């Protein structure tokens, strides 16, 4: 028998512990706290990157300690070091192999601009071959600077429109291997 008073508001007995939010906020919150970095360690800056992963600086406080050496499993390439023209191809290929959404951090002077290597052999900034989200200055940047850069990246991820078009079917992108959708 229906009661006279029907409750239309949130009923925790019926619906459990539900939090209403926006899809963007939820997705970005998850993404920004589980960045899996791809350590593209190419020179001395990689040593500071390793230090950031160690106990003293402890990058795992930001949910970023899962360094993956497989591009398939990572979503943030930290280019730490000098990129030579010979290596540029490899950096680009690994970037292409990472699944979207993906971000790139240029750690240090070399990755950002070629640094002190104004030379015939060194790519003058990794942004010439991959889209860079965050540049970190320093030669090398201290681990704190890397952490600061990664927090900036988190801020950036939190502002992205992640849910846009999420529910509309999209045509599949052609496979990099076969060229077929």
């Amino acid at each position, binding site marked *: 028998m229906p009661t006279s008073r029907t409750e239309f508001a949130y009923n925790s007995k019926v619906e459990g512990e539900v939090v209403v939010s926006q899809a963007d906020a939820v997705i970005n919150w998850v993404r920004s706290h589980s960045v899996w970095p791809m350590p593209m360690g190419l020179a001395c800056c990689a040593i500071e990157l390793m230090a950031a992963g160690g106990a003293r600086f402890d990058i795992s406080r930001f949910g970023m300690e899962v360094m993956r050496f497989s591009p398939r499993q990572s979503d943030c390439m930290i280019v730490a070091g000098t990129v030579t023209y010979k290596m540029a191809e490899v950096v680009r290929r690994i970037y292409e192999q990472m699944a979207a959404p993906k971000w790139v951090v240029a750690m240090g002077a070399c990755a950002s601009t070629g640094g002190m290597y104004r030379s015939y052999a060194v790519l*003058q900034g990794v942004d010439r071959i991959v889209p860079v989200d965050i540049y970190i200055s320093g030669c090398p940047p201290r681990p704190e600077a890397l952490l600061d850069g990664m927090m900036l990246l988190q801020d950036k991820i939190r502002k992205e429109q992640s849910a846009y078009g999420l529910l509309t079917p999209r045509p599949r992108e052609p496979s990099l291997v076969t060229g077929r959708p």
Partner: protein
Amino acid sequence: MDTIVDTLKSKFPFVTPRPSHDQPAVNVPADHLREVAQVLRDDLGYDMLLDLCGVDWDQARPRFGVIYHFYHSGKKTYLRVATLAPDSAAPAVPSLADLWPAGDWHEREAYDMFGIHFEGHPNLTRILMWEGYPYHPLRKEFPLAGIETELPAADTAAATGAKVIAAPMMGGPFQAGTQEHHHMSDAEPRAGDQSWTESKPKPGQKG
């Protein structure tokens, strides 16, 4: 005093002593190099080829040479051997890679950087720059900043439009801090002349 130099001189009339501040040194003509090298290794006990490097003598003719450093692990003595490639346009010297395997990669490096051909080398390909790079970067006429050319990977170049460019020197070349900089924080690599940048042209120079 330089007994090895005297020994070589008495064995080979074409060997001449070479002025040197440190270790014994001799000049050997390129066409006799292998003959001398064989004796150095088998009879005189120089069992290690520590290093070899190309040299570009710029205006001098012959222009290119190779300098070898040998080591006698029994007597713990060094020997420097210098040779010149007779042809300055297409420099070539015999390879020593079969006598000392250490020569293999070093000769590839000298070939890569100077374009010196090592005759008889088993695999004379570039070792630092990529195959197909059109220049030999340590030659005197090659600018430090480099010369514009294509990226080694055609697909990366097509996807990004990137090229090998002449690096903007921006007041460089860049060096670690000099003697005025006593603190590590001051010693970060910097341009020798930072009075000009990409947006502020070099004094006395247009653009």
